[in-house]
C-alpha cells in the first residue's frame, strides 16, 4: 500500500523536524535536515507509482536525484559555515549565534 510508505515518510519527516527544532548542536540539526529530506524523497518515489491516466514515467526518481544534489550542496555549505563559526566563536550551539536578537 502506497499510503504506508507515505506514513513512513511522514514519520521520518516529523522526527527530523523534531531534531531540527529541539536540538542545539548545529551538526545534529544538519543531520536532522538530511532525515527530513529523506522523508521527502520517499514521498517522491512512492507517489510516482500512483497511476494518473497518462503513460507513467519515473519522473519522481529524477526529482529525487535533484534533491540529493541539493542536499549534498547544502551539507557542503552548511558544514563550511559550521567550521567558520566554530573558528570564530568556539561553539556549535545554535543559541550562541543570536546575532539577530531583537
Amino acid at each position: 500500500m502506497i499510503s504506508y510508505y507515505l506514513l513512513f515518510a511522514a514519520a521520518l519527516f516529523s522526527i527530523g523536524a523534531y531534531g531540527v527544532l529541539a536540538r542545539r548542536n548545529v551538526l545534529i540539526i544538519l543531520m536532522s535536515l538530511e532525515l527530513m529530506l529523506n522523508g521527502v524523497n520517499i514521498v517522491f518515489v512512492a507517489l510516482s507509482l500512483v497511476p494518473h491516466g497518462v503513460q507513467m514515467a519515473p519522473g519522481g526518481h529524477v526529482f529525487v536525484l535533484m534533491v540529493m544534489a541539493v542536499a549534498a550542496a547544502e551539507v557542503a555549505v552548511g558544514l563550511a559555515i559550521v567550521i567558520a563559526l566554530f573558528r570564530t566563536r568556539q561553539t556549535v550551539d545554535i543559541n550562541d549565534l543570536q546575532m539577530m536578537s531583537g
Partner: protein
Amino acid sequence: MDPIFLIASAVALASAVNMVTQRNPVYSAVFLLVGFLAVAVTFLSLSAPFLAAIHVVVYTGAIMVLFLFVIMLLNLKPEELGAEYPIETRAPIAVLCAAMFGMMSWAILSDPSLAIPAKAPNATWGSVEEVGLLLFNVYALPFELISLLIIVAMFGALVLAKKRLSNVEATS
C-alpha cells in the same frame, strides 16, 4: 505488505529516533548512517533500484563522510558539546511534531487513491536506463542547473571554510 519494507522502515525509524536524541554527534552520525541504509532498502522495495544505489553512494558515501570529517575536524570534547534544551522545551516541540505527523497521517489515510499496492507498472521501472533517458531528455535543463548549483556550493564551501589569507600569514 512487503516484509522487507516493514523491517527496513522499523530500522529506519528506530535509528532516526536514536539519531535525534543522541547527545554526542558521532553517535548520531552512526545512527544516521543506519537510517540512510534502511531508506535505501525502502527505495528498493518501491521498485527504485537505481535510486537505492545512488542513495547509498551520495548519502553514505559523500554526505556521511563529510559529516564525520567535520566532526573529527572540530574534535569536540564532551564538555564542549554545550547544553541542550530542558525537557520542558523539548516536550512541546515533540507534541508539535506529533501533531504535524497526525495531520499528515490523517491526510494520507483519508485519500482513497493512495490505498493501492505499491507495484511497478513494468519490469524496467526505475532502472538506470529509464531514469537516465528521462534525466537527459525531458529534464536536461534542470540537470544542468543543478550541476551549476553544485559548483556554486563547492566554491561557497571553499570560501567559507578556508582561513583568511591574512590570518594565515599572521599565524605563520
